[in-house]
């Protein structure tokens, strides 16, 4: 195929809109033999010239990521330096990592982060899926929209407000939860100060805030399932449970897999705002996570290099976990993030 052939084929599509089939084939390299191009750079240049409106639309996003997500990575070198306000920073190698790992508190903080994240993935992650499946079974559109509005609302509340609500609701003195426990003959408990209950407060407050909003993605995935599948199943006499089990659930597995892998990548982000606002002295040793530790020691205490070392450690672990989950998912289900 020559360049003229390619131009002829492009011009045969309606207007300036490229034919998606051809585009796919071209990207796959089926129709553009490598020998037609001097180099990869020439191929890119040619592509940009041809598809420039799309590259133009892509540019703001690329610039944003380059400026705010990739350039700052270079500044992570601060973890290996002593920060100087005047004059260049001093290279100290792994000093800050050694200081971090020598502290018994750091491993307690790391353990808390892992436990809280694991609890959230185990108990909070499935909730939106369940919610989306249940919402999909609601036949009354008005009722479904009403329920959706109500369950989306907590997502828009800040953790400061949510912490206030939970502290008040769980108060052993006049909290509504303890009033209900009183009514059924259970003893009043101080959930916010008991070391056995505070992590569950984090889990359920997270679920209350995010389950509704997160169900939106799954609900959208459910909506994209071909209705013909349901019609065929009905003709075969499938019950509602069977349709959910054999059509809906498999239909949203790719979405579940993608979101699970992304969640695993953020495994060490146990929720700074949430923990910061719900923490108190009584249970700090149970919910002090890497982010709050970094904030307290690094930002408030002015130990920026130490804080960067902890942040870098968190980033590397998060990346490793995400890659691990991706390759595991590829092997088990054939699907990954890419």
């Amino acid at each position: 195929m020559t360049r003229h052939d390619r131009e002829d084929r492009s011009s045969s599509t309606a207007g300036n809109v490229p034919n998606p089939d051809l585009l796919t084939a071209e990207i796959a390299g089926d129709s553009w033999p490598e020998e037609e191009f001097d180099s990869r750079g020439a191929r890119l240049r040619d592509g940009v010239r041809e598809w420039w409106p799309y590259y133009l639309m892509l540019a703001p996003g690329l610039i944003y990521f380059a400026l705010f997500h990739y350039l700052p990575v270079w500044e992570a070198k601060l973890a290996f330096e002593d920060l100087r306000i005047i004059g260049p920073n001093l290279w100290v190698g792994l000093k800050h990592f050694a200081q971090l790992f020598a502290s018994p508190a750091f491993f307690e903080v790391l353990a808390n982060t892992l436990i809280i994240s694991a609890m959230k993935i185990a108990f909070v992650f499935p909730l939106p899926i369940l919610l989306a499946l249940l919402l999909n079974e609601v036949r009354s559109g008005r009722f479904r929209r009403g329920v959706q509005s109500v369950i989306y609302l907590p997502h828009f509340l800040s953790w400061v407000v949510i912490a206030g609500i939970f502290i008040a609701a769980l108060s052993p003195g006049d909290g509504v939860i303890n009033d209900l426990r009183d009514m059924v003959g259970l003893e009043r408990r101080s959930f916010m100060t008991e070391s056995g209950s505070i992590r569950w407060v984090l889990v359920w407050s997270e679920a209350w805030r995010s389950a509704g909003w997160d169900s939106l993605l799954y609900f959208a995935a459910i909506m994209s399932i071909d209705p013909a599948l349901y019609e065929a199943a009905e003709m075969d006499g499938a019950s509602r449970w069977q349709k959910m089990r054999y059509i809906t659930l498999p239909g949203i597995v790719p979405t579940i897999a993608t979101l699970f892998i992304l969640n695993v990548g953020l495994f060490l982000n146990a929720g700074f705002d949430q923990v910061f606002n719900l923490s108190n002295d009584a249970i700090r040793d149970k919910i002090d996570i890497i982010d709050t530790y970094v904030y307290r020691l690094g930002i408030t205490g002015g130990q920026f290099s130490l804080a960067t070392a902890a942040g870098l450690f968190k980033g590397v672990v998060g990346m490793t976990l995400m890659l691990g989950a991706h390759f595991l998912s590829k092997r088990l289900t054939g699907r990954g993030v890419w």
Partner: protein
Amino acid sequence: MQHLSISRRALLAGLAATPMVGLLSRPARAASGTIRIVMKDLLTTNPEDVAHIGRIEEALAARGHDISIEIVDLPSEGYAEKLNLMLLSGDIPDVIYFQGGDEQIAQQGVLQDLGSLIEGTEHLAPALWPHNTARMANYPYLLYVFPARTKAPVIRRDLLEATGLSAPASLEEWDALLRAIPGIELDGTTVSHGIIAPNNTDEMDAVFDPAFGIDRTWMQDEAGEWIHSRISAGEREKLAWYASLYADGVLDPEFVTSNWEVKEDKFYTGQVGVVMGTAGPVIGIYEAKMAQVNPGAELVLLTPPAGIQAIDVSKESRGFAIPVTTEQTEAVIAFLDFMASPEGQMMDRLGFEGEHYTRDGDTLTPTDKLGAWYPRFVYDNPNHYQPPISPLSDLAQASLQQGVDNFRADNSFVWPADLAAAVDGAETYYRTNVFRFVSGELSTERDWDAYVQGWLDAGGQAMIDHAKAVL
């Protein structure tokens, strides 16, 4: 000719003397330049701040200082972090107000030694409080000429009278008073608890520590070894007492999840009997708000059973610093010296004439707005200057005096950066376990030794090792 000669000599002498006379009538060193100042709650968006700075510039000009003051805006929320980030970005103003985070900057040699700079100043040096002098000797990079932030306990007068007890003097009397408060009905509300301290026991410690023999941060045990007060016998006794108050509902069981707003609300609404507040203006605010919520209600200042907690003189916890990068050191010192002068104090402590006070001849009368005014820069010790009218009530003044009368310097010191993680670990461990002892989850009889070992393992041993070298 001779006459002329004499006249010429006299004229020459007069001409020579004129500038000398001019110099003598002005401050010894006239300073000039533009000072950039960054300070929490000092903002160009606040017209009162801008007007205050404007009249200070005029007053300085009248003294021969051609100084322009430029406010650097920084949000009050998260001020310490934002300030650190601003400095790290290379923007270093001429006067920096720190509220934490200064040690890392000082350790890099970025802050000037203020001790030598203020030495010999006309007003600033004599305006220092005793705790300022002690702190400057240990850490000369921050200056905060204000009363020490001691805590003072207060109670409603009618509540105290309703207990049938007099103001307590000893720990036993304090115990009796606090236990007598719950259950008393006041204005239709039953007082639920005797005392509350927000977030942790810090405010109670400030009042009760000395009564348990905790008179310093670092104490010597029976063998003469240095130990931290956190693991002392006095701490153990104190926590046992707090636990008994908690168990009997005298200490508000929700104190650890309460912030200062909750504390004040419970105090004003009669749910709690005794609270501690920062001596001076804060006690004045308690008094005003209590009278606002409960017309006619008065507060009584209570006396701690054995004096107040020793004052940390290792360094100022907040205050002004001058970086080595500035070329305006002389102007900054002239500015601060002026703020400590009677004229500067009139401006900084009494606000604006006609708005915060009125003048009729030599008589000054405070207006209602004086309560909302607060000094920004310097608050002289009373031996150097006292304003003709005080913005503080008698109760607030008495609370300040309580702090002055009970002043005792602590022996704590500044920790090196290498021990930051150890100090944080030990402190977190202590805070968590304090609540467990107080709430009864741990027993001071059964679990004390394990607690001490845990504290040492969490970083306390490293702290003690360093303390032995320092002390």
